[in-house]
């Protein structure tokens, strides 16, 4: 029973910490509520919520400690943005360390187990805490302005969603799991140094907590878009970003429950292995429950950023996007198809020819909405009289290009023959890093740069350093992912702590790429630190949020506000 005892003590400590945190948050909420009621009274408002909307609502919000205490949408948005930035750098450090450990073919710098921990943590934290987290952050931050929310009344739910997500991320980090991000049993059930990690059970709880947070958040976001937006903004006038967030939230609500159930079953298996390794088990069952969610999550990680690209391009071309309707149609089709292609992650697990044909065909069909989206971007740029290559615009264009490369290498894998060839190789790693670096990470930075004047309280960032950050990130990720793609095509296995010496050139190239990305991010951090020390010189209103989205014309096509070009450049940080 000692094992159980230790286990229960650890569990109760974690639960107590969560309870303490919840109490702490409750206390602040309660305290704040009474303060707001007093303030609303003093200002002559009947309803504190009305007072909140008018005083906080759509107005610019600066990054400050209060963002972690207030529960209005924008504060929670800042919370997500900052937290996801932390996790990006944590997981990014893990990734870079993995790269550096592969300088020699034989694992020497890191043991295989250390490599597995870094591999798992890098993947899990990047996906759930960075890609999804920063998308939710921008959603909470931008939607009040884009939709002119008429009230903001579910802050408590939004906040609890954040803390569930955040605590879940910390638990995953603390668990030092080595079971890969898909936690396949029986490896995930082996609580040992050589198995899934001694504390892998905590990763399962942590992931479940992340899911609780995401479910709360998704339902809340759907309600914000559906119920809370200004009635003056019709469905056909919503910003593309709002549409993309709506699709993303629907995708999470539709796909997460199977894995939430699967994780509960997995957790039960720690005590009594009856589901996945027991007498009447099916190991593939967990894989199916996982990938039913596992594929939509990778679309969850890009669709919000597609929406952001639609928002960014018009700001620097001074014209609306080429086709609002086909943009929505493309993203919506992506949402539908995402639910039917999960089987392509299990093509080589013995699904049978009929299912393989179904999933490869469905996966190939994803080309259609992807192409609609890319052509829409290209047409928007093509038809512009003038494109201003500011840093966010550079990130956006680079993202489109990376998406084309990553998309083509992706659709190649929907051929079962090629899939068998590249399965388990760096080709796959290269494919999704093109997309995650170009779209997810690049567009996050683009949006962050555009929001910087507001977040920093009216300061400008150093444009030269920002450009440098872009070039390092873009070139580094191109080099790294391309080396993987080529190496993978000739058979370099992924997710292992070593490699055969024949793959040395590809590993060296990707290590160089990884180092370049790392240096780029240090430049980013230096830029933030130094820019924040400067005196504020700009208005708090940023281009992404406030400029160009007021005048949605009758046809439902957003057009940029004819504001002064200088102000837009300054506020967007462009040159």
């Amino acid at each position, binding site marked *: 029973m000692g094992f159980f005892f230790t286990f229960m003590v650890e569990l109760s400590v974690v639960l107590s910490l969560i309870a303490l945190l919840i109490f702490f948050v409750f206390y602040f909420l309660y305290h704040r509520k009474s303060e707001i009621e007093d303030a609303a009274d003093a200002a002559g408002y009947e309803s504190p919520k009305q007072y909140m909307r008018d005083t906080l609502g759509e107005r610019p919000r600066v990054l*400050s400690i209060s963002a972690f205490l207030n529960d209005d949408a924008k504060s929670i948005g800042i919370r997500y943005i900052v937290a996801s930035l932390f996790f990006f750098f944590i997981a990014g450090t893990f990734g870079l360390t993995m790269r550096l450990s592969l300088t020699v073919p034989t694992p020497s710098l890191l043991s295989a187990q250390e490599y597995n921990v870094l591999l798992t943590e890098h993947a899990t934290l990047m996906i759930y805490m960075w890609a999804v987290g920063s998308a939710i952050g921008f959603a909470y931050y931008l939607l009040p302005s884009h939709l002119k929310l008429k009230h903001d009344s579910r802050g408590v739910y939004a906040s609890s969603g954040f803390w569930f997500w955040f605590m879940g991320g910390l638990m995953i980090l603390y668990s030092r799991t080595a079971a890969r991000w898909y936690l396949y049993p029986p490896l995930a059930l082996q609580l040992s140094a050589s198995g899934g990690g001694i504390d892998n059970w905590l990763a399962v709880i942590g992931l479940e907590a992340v899911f609780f947070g995401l479910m709360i958040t998704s339902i809340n976001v759907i309600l914000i878009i559906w119920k809370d937006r200004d009635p003056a903004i019709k469905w056909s006038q919503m910003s593309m970003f709002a549409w993309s967030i709506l699709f993303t939230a629907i995708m999470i609500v539709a796909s997460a429950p199977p894995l939430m159930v699967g994780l509960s079953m997995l957790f039960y298996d720690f005590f009594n292995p009856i589901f996945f390794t027991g007498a009447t088990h099916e190991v593939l069952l967990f894989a199916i429950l996982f990938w039913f969610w596992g594929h939509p999550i990778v679309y969850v990680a890009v669709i919000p950023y597609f929406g952001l690209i639609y928002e960014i391009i018009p700001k620097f071309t001074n014209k609306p996007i080429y086709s609002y309707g086909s943009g929505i149609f493309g993203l919506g089709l992506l949402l539908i198809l995402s639910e039917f292609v999960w089987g392509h992650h299990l093509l080589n697990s013995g699904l049978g020819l009929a299912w393989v044909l179904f999933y490869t065909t469905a996966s190939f069909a994803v080309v259609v909405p992807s192409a609609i989206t890319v052509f829409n971007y290209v047409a928007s740029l093509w038809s512009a009289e003038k494109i201003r290559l500011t840093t966010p615009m550079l990130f956006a264009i680079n993202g489109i290009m990376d998406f084309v490369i990553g998309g083509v290498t992706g659709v190649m894998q929907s051929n079962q023959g090629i899939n068998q060839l590249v399965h388990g190789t760096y080709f796959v790693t290269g494919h999704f890093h093109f997309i995650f670096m170009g779209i997810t990470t690049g567009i996050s930075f683009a949006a962050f740069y555009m929001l910087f004047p507001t977040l920093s309280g009216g300061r400008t960032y150093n444009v030269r350093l920002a450009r440098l950050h872009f070039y390092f990130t873009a070139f580094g990720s191109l080099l790294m992912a391309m080396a993987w793609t080529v190496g993978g095509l000739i058979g370099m296995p992924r997710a292992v702590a070593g490699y055969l010496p024949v793959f040395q050139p590809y590993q060296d190239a990707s290590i160089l790429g990884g180092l370049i990305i790392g240096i780029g991010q240090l430049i980013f951090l230096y830029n933030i630190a130094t820019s924040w020390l400067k005196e504020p010189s700009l208005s708090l209103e940023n281009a992404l949020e406030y400029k160009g989205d007021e005048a949605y014309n009758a046809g439902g096509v957003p057009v940029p506000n004819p504001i002064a070009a200088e102000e837009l450049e300054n506020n967007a940080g462009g040159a």
Partner: protein
Amino acid sequence: MSGKIGPILVILIIAAAGLSLGFALNVPTTATFSLPAVPAHPAHYHNVTLYADANGWNYNVKGYTTNPTIVILPGTVVNFTVIEEDNQPHTLTIAYGPHESSFSDTLLSTSAITTTPGHVSHAQAYFNKTGEYTYWCIIHFTTMVGQLWVNNSLPTFSLPAAPSNMSATQNTTLFADSNGWNYSHGVANPSLYFEKGSLVNFTIVQEDGNPHSLFIALGSNESSFSEELMKSSDLGNKTGSTFTFLAYFNSTGEYTYWDSHNPNTTMGHIYVVTSRLSIGLVATSGGISYNGHFNNSILVKNNTALTIAVSDPTGSVYNVNMSEGYVPAAGSMTVIGKNNSSSSATLLLNSPQAYALFDGFNNSTHHLLFVYDKIVNYTMNETIHGWYNKTLNPTISVAAGDLVNFTILNGDNLSHTLEINPGNNESASSAYSVAGVVPGQNSSSGFYLFNQTGNYTYWDLYHPSTAVGIITSGNASSSSAAVQPSISSLSNIDNLSIPELASVKNDS
């Protein structure tokens, strides 16, 4: 203040990333516990065979204990043999301490054990530190977990000391032969039956000049929890030499005796029973008679070794058959056959049951053999209106294992029978006719054995609609307390001696 947020944020980010990396790289990468290397010449060896099953080590393997506790001396090398049972991945992992721990040594990994049923894998482990170890499968750690104790002395089993002033009640001679006890003297490795409380005088005769010992353990298998009643030096190597010793048995059960020099060939069993009973049967052309009758009731107390001897003065052809139930049935067991070399057999009767005992060549007559826990008398008066004892059609309480001697009194001088069958309803097909009276007959009696818990139905074949009632058979532990106290005629005669049995009791 707001101007410093940026640098603070950056510093925090760098610190968080650095600390996280340090934390992640601090992950335990190897087991910090390992058993010492196996020496070339250990003091002891011990073999352990484990069947790997997700429900438990050795789960449902005949002759093996599930998750056995292994007890060894310090300085022992344990040779583990792990046999895959169930298609599941398993490991054999050992930690020092009473529980599973992450500080463990995996002797056999999933790849070594494989998931192929029947696959045999081996591992050696050396234990030189006393204490409690735990062995388990890291995948099925809730079910597949057992203890390994390294003790300075092995726990022993020994027979109890005989009361002083007691003299031997029984003599048993065994011939020590490497091929088996009594190898060339009738049945090899004979089963021995002793009454509880017997002081047995064993005489061992050296038969083949090889060294022999005699170990005894409780249970149906050889075990390390054993007593060495005879060392090889006691008997010596001289053919024909003898060694005698006394052994006292005062608890019932199954024991195993064997010679540690020839453990595979010399394993026999000793059954210590509540009582021993011998009965003599006579084979005739009209069936098998007992005490001059062809349809006797033979009452045997539960947990008795019953020796049946048959004499055949007329040279008739016979088989002594036994079947469960009140009538000769197909699938019966031939206890003694005309082809058997022996005309006697000993049966261990250790659960309450009614048997029919009959001649396999002529089953027109049969005896009833009841194995009972206790005997109860019950009398009822019967009329056309129903059974009567204090109340009409009383509900009778008995305990499972009770042998009830029913007496029925003829209250209206008509024909009546007492039929009993299991269940809540009358069932002609499963009923046994215990007793019956006809006009002019005052009373009749018969035995019925209740060998299971639940309800039985008693009824009258001639008046089934009025004369019917229920007998509830409870757990034996509820004993006579379950008997309705108002039924004064119900008396416990457990301790009464039964003359017909006492007369046939003799030594084997």
